[in-house]
């Protein structure tokens, strides 16, 4: 106990790891927190430290979001060179709005991929969700909110049903969701009846999902400011708590750097959406998508539920022996996927102007899964980030938007999207192999 007090009384620099090995005899054998192991490669202080650690990670196959970010920059340069309206305000707002619906669905897929499974039914569930909302609210006169809520709950129940067949009955998830893919799309067509499409009513919630913009510039900048401040505050708070607990913490320089990067991105986006000619302000769809991302990221990384999802995806048997209810986790994850699919379906209905018989069919499913994988979530389970849904979807929508601006036919778009997906999976497989040889997988 006296050692504990002694340690915490030392200057705080000792917590920053590098100096400890030089000071082996400090606490004697009874120091509560041991010195850093000499085998551990510790990041050096300052900018050079970031450089060497970055190179080490790349060599070890930990590519993270790097391929996507590089891809996005390349895409922006190529399309901007071909057509200078690619980076215009309306084009960027378009990308933001079209990214949202599919991106929300991709968040659900990220959770399923973290389990090491696949959900092929999301496109059909999205279409069914939109159909349920349209039929209830337009044909049966339900109130807007109730119909929206009911559609999302239906998605949750459908996903959980897939989960029950997978976890309790033991049918492979691939087959269960393939059956769902066919079955739910059948139900969607049956619900839509003979006319085949129901237009979104003027001023309804679903219409506003993607057509509402916060014209007041203060909203855009305000959201950016809140995001940056919240990010900086969470980093500072964590660092303070870690220091108090005498654990290695982020140096202030890193916090400043990270906050600066987030601030630049947030304010550039807010500026682009607010200021240029023809800008309509911050789209509501983007706000909702970001909210889903932040909540999902928190659930995945900071809650016991998220930890259990990663554990089941990494080693289901170990998770079972540790007392985790593996079946329940699997059912819950498929439920989340179904719920977010139905919610995303409402966005797609909103951009399409209504629910149709074939909404959510075609390449919706492929785009959603591709987005999660392109963003860097592994197909093999246990590794990935919720933010990969945003990054991957941005890549795909940017390509689509760029090709549209160039007047490219949809068959070319399919081929290019296919090639991008293949490239992403190749990167995943190769980096995983490198990680194995580097002992990181």
């Amino acid at each position, binding site marked *: 106990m006296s050692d504990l007090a002694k340690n915490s009384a030392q200057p705080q620099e000792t917590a920053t790891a590098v100096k400890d090995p030089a000071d082996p005899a400090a606490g004697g054998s009874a120091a509560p*927190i041991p010195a850093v*192991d000499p085998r*551990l490669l510790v990041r050096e202080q300052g900018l050079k430290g970031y450089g060497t650690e970055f190179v080490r990670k790349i060599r070890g196959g930990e590519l993270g979001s790097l391929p996507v970010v590089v891809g996005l920059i390349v895409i922006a340069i190529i399309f901007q060179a071909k057509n200078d309206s690619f980076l215009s305000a309306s084009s960027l707002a378009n990308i933001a709005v079209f990214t949202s619906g599919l991106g929300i669905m991709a968040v659900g897929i990220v959770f399923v991929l973290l389990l090491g499974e696949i959900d092929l039914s999301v496109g059909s569930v999205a279409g069914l969700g939109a159909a349920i909302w349209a039929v209830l609210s337009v044909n049966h006169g339900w109130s807007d909110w109730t119909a929206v809520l009911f559609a999302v709950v239906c998605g949750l129940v459908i996903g959980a049903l897939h989960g029950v067949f997978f976890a309790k009955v033991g049918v492979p998830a691939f087959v269960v969701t393939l059956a769902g893919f066919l079955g739910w799309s059948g139900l969607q067509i049956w619900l839509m009846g003979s006319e085949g499409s129901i237009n979104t009513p003027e001023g309804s919630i679903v219409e506003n999902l993607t057509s509402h913009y916060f014209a007041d510039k203060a909203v855009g900048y305000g959201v950016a400011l809140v995001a940056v401040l919240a990010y900086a505050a969470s980093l500072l708070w*964590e660092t303070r708590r870690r220091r108090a607990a005498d654990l290695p913490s982020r140096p202030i320089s890193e916090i400043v750097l990270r906050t600066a990067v987030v601030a630049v991105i947030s304010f550039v986006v807010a500026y682009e959406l607010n200021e240029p000619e023809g800008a309509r302000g911050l789209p509501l769809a983007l706000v909702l998508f970001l909210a889903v991302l932040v909540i999902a990221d928190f659930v995945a990384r*900071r809650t016991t539920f998220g930890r259990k999802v990663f*554990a089941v995806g990494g080693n289901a048997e170990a*998770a079972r022996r540790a007392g985790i209810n593996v079946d329940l986790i699997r059912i819950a994850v498929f439920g989340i996927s179904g719920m977010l699919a139905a919610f995303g379906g409402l966005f797609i209905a909103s951009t399409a102007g209504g629910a149709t018989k074939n909404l959510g069919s075609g390449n919706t499913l492929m785009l959603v899964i591709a987005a999660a994988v392109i963003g860097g979530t592994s197909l093999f389970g*246990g590794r990935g980030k919720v933010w990969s849904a945003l990054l991957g979807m941005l890549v795909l929508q940017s390509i689509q938007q760029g090709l549209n601006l160039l007047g490219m036919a949809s068959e070319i778009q399919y081929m290019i999207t296919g090639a991008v997906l293949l490239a992403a999976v190749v990167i995943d497989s190769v980096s995983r192999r490198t990680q194995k040889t580097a002992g990181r*997988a």
Partner: protein
Amino acid sequence: MIHVSATPVLALRGVSKRFGAVQALTDVDLEIHAGEVVALVGDNGAGKSTLVKTISGVHPIDEGGIEWEGRPVRIGRPQDAQHLGVATVYQDLALCDNLDVVANLFLGNELRQVQVLDEIGMEKRAKELLHTLSIRIPSVRIPVASLSGGQRQVVAIARALIGDPKVVILDEPTAALGVEQTAQVLDLVERLRERGHGVILISHNMEDVRAVADRVAVLRLGRNNGVFSVRDTSHEEIIAAITGATDNAVTRRKARTLTKEDAR
């Protein structure tokens, strides 16, 4: 010197277990005291794993009784054993490769506020635990995948101690390890004893058993075949108990060499 308490932490009295037509355990007695390492040895099929599984709640016993600190208890499920304070380190380590050391140590027992993980609290306790066990791991924040076999084994053992159990069961902890790692694990077993845990060590390796165990309980064909104090018993006597005969390859060879020496 080992201080053995009067009442055993865990005592099996006349335990029997059948699987269909096979009588896996017959009338087995075993006592574990606090601060004592008991090695459980026997040939393949002698019933070691079955006995351990009855203690850890995987297979409930058919007959006999289990006493915990002197009072009779029933262990019907793995959770019962965990609640009593029995922790089992299985042969296949049951770690999640993709999670870091802290996450693995606390898997299923996470420190939390409501549903939110208390990462800092867990990291602090993990460091303290690893330090008290003198376990050297480069960092508690690296994935278990980057650890060596020996390091994984010590992490698995450390994980069993998170709930502060009274009895720790180690199933073949050194089977897949090299010389250095084996020594590390044996050191760890000794440290468990020093901290007052009762340890049941299953091993085929007599050197390991003689190195760390206080007593050796021999099983043969599902029955007790003697409990020996390691210090007062020769290697051959234990081998004899395991194989069930004083006449075996080892004793014959020994006798031969002795005769040769005498002849000289």
